[in-house]
């Protein structure tokens, strides 16, 4: 049966180049996700639910909500990220497609890069839908800081994707994967949470990218360090 997984493996064994493998795997994941669209919907609705619950929990003070808006957005995105990773992991173990993919790969880290890029794309889409809604609800002027906001969002979501994909593949192979994933992911990604929330808050307040450079540097360093670390240790996660 020509499932996306089989055709992807066929394509990969003929072209050993790293980038081709990454793109082939990424295309497979995106095709699977696009067919059902359940994952996007679930992640987006969950992010919106988190934002709404926070809104009710914090109270009716609009000024206070404006101040905590960035924090609420990032919490919603972190939790949506956990949800997305758990769903991806579930899909992978149901299809049992990973074994075939791993055999066809010459460099296993191509799988990590592909999964990380897929997770980043899901998060960017969910973020792209949630943030404007928050702008509406919390009365934020997002159009004025759109460029800087996108930079902060992308760097932060990249960090969440890297750590999330790594721990997602690890937690999937434990007995209590639903518990282990958030327990590992959330504390380790605290630097991203702190830096991204501060950068987003200040950018929304009207500061330029240069003024939030400190936080962007933290995000950038985190992304680079954890990407390198993930490439090194990924083999140990998927080895038999």
């Amino acid at each position: 049966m020509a499932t996306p997984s089989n055709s992807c493996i066929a394509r990969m064994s003929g072209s050993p180049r790293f980038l081709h493998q990454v793109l082939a795997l990424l295309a497979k994941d995106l095709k699977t996700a696009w067919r059902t669209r359940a994952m996007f919907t679930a992640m987006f609705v969950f992010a919106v639910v988190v934002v709404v619950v926070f809104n009710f929990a914090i109270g009716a003070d609009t000024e206070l909500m404006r101040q905590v808006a960035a924090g609420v957005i990032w919490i919603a995105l972190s939790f949506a990220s956990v949800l997305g990773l758990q769903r991806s992991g579930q899909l992978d173990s149901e299809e049992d497609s990973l074994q075939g993919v791993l055999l066809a790969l010459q460099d296993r880290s191509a799988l990590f890069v592909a999964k990380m890029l897929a997770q980043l794309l899901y998060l960017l889409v969910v973020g792209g839908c949630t943030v404007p809604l928050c702008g509406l609800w919390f009365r934020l002027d997002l159009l004025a800081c759109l460029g800087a906001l996108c930079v902060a969002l992308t760097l932060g979501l990249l960090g969440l994707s890297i750590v999330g994909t790594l721990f997602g593949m690890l937690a999937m192979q434990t007995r209590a994967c639903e518990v282990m994933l958030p327990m590992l992911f959330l504390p380790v990604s605290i630097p991203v949470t702190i830096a991204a929330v501060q950068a987003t808050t200040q950018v929304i307040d009207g500061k330029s990218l240069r003024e939030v450079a400190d936080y962007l540097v933290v995000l950038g360093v985190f992304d680079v360090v954890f990407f390198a670390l993930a490439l090194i240790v990924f083999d140990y996660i998927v080895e038999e």
Partner: protein
Amino acid sequence: MPTWWAVMLVVMVFPGIYACRNRVFHALVLGLTMHIALLLVFLYAPTEQMQGMVQKIFYFHVAAALTMFGAFLLVCVASSMYLWKQAEWWDAIACSAAEIGVVFCTLVLITGPLWARPIWGTWWSWDPTLTLTLVLWLIYVAYLLLRLETSAPQRARFAAIVGIIGFVDVPLIRWSVEKWRTLHPKPVLVQAGGTTGLTSAMLLTFLVCLGAFVLLFFYLLRERVSLAQSQHALAVVRQEIDEHCAG
């Protein structure tokens, strides 16, 4: 000051190194050092003018904190060695160091507020080091839970990965928490003035306490590693019995 360092080195390091060879000797040296540390803390170190008696918590609190960092560094090193050499002994060290590190971490998180409450008037002030300690506690408790929830072939590998990642994250967490902290209002000192710095007597007391804690860490490590190795040996013997009964 230099004379003190030389005396400390001679008095602590050489018996300390020899203690590694012999368990009973280690226990004796540890007991002796702890007694000396306690005597120094309560009878020799001067009472700090501003903070009073409560300041004496500092000696054991900071000694435990530094030992805890050392423990987690050992987890990172042992985890890396395990991934490289695939030797079970390194995994035993990583697991043991993590468990003892979490115990010390818990002690730091309990004594910190007990010190902060009379001085700052509040139990918790999101101080950067204490916040870092809290995040480390979360990460390494997750490490221990991961070990419980993963079965044998992957357990050591996955734990090693988390052990390394957790420690590599430490400078990043510290950096970001300090940046975040600058936005936090600092709690006002209840007692005016604050710490007046360490006198040489206090420094000596602190170093002896630190030495005692390091000896304690290695003693606990020795016991815990031997436990881990017994558990591993038990699993191996059980497997052999199963194989022979099945075959």
